């Protein structure tokens, strides 16, 4: 057989096998999705209870959970804390407009946001302002302090507009 033809044929086979293996690790089937959904709601389900929820017996469900952990589909587990007991009962939403939206300015703002503990969530927004922040503080006066001393002082903040949450109806 001609050498180059053989080479092409061989690398084709190799590619095929690589694809197969990649598929094997990347694919999540419906049972995996059900497992992730169940563990997102309660990470301490026993493997037996989890198996019942997703329709598998204990041993295959355990294997799947270990695989989802090892391959990074499950990033980790966290405790959900009572915000009131953490002194974070007051929720405020803050719309932020930056004075400068060059990528350097955005990056500086994003970096500072990640370091600010009062900011629970931050999304970049399309529309009349640039960012929407969700802030958690103890009460209205600590919010005012956080706004004046922390939020308004984040890099490049030109303007903020706040609406307070009066009641939490539903939270993850």
């Amino acid at each position, binding site marked *: 057989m001609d050498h180059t033809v053989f080479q092409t044929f061989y690398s084709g086979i190799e590619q095929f096998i690589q694809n197969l293996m990649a598929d094997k690790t990347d694919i999540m089937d419906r049972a995996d999705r059900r497992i992730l959904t169940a563990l997102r709601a309660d990470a301490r389900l026993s493997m037996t209870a989890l198996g019942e929820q997703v329709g598998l017996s204990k041993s295959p469900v355990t294997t799947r959970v270990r695989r989802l952990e090892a391959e990074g589909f499950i990033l980790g587990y966290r405790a959900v804390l009572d915000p009131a007991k953490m002194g974070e009962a007051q929720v405020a939403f803050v719309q932020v407009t930056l004075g400068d939206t060059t990528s350097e300015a955005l990056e500086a703002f994003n970096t500072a946001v990640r370091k600010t503990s009062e900011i629970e969530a931050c999304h*970049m927004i399309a529309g009349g302002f640039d960012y929407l922040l969700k802030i958690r503080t103890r009460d209205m006066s600590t919010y005012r302090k956080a706004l004046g001393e922390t939020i308004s002082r984040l890099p490049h903040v030109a303007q903020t507009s706040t609406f307070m949450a009066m009641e939490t109806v539903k939270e993850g």
Partner: protein
Amino acid sequence: METLHHSEPMHIMRLAEWTGWIAPREKRESLTYKLRTLFGGVKTNGSPQIKRLEKDGSILGYRAVVNPSLLDLGQVMFVQVALRDTSKETRDSFTRAVHAIGEIETCHMITGDFHYMLTIRTRSVDAFQGLLTEQIAQLPAVARTTTIIAMKTIKTR
């Protein structure tokens, strides 16, 4: 690493939140390991301190952290909702609907021109559009809505 105080359950709780009770990708960074190093000898799962916090409702539960896009929940939208009126009946019927719609991740009653702020997670803008027009806008209590599109998530805790 910050210095933490044994006696303050709040720090233990915060630590539990930060680290989770097991981080599968870094076994050595698991909560047990961290608590042992930081508090000297405190065990986590089944430790009296953690059990007490679970019992008194300080720790509400434990959740797996999953990349939302894996579960077709990658698109975040914020929807502000104004109700027809704010009588208790109207609010209750709206609240019941909110709890029944799985895509609504959070809902807060807010000050301002609207009454409620919803965080919604869907697979795509299209999927969101369907949810908004066919479910949320159809609720009898809802007078009007406005939507804010999240282009990028910078931080969620």
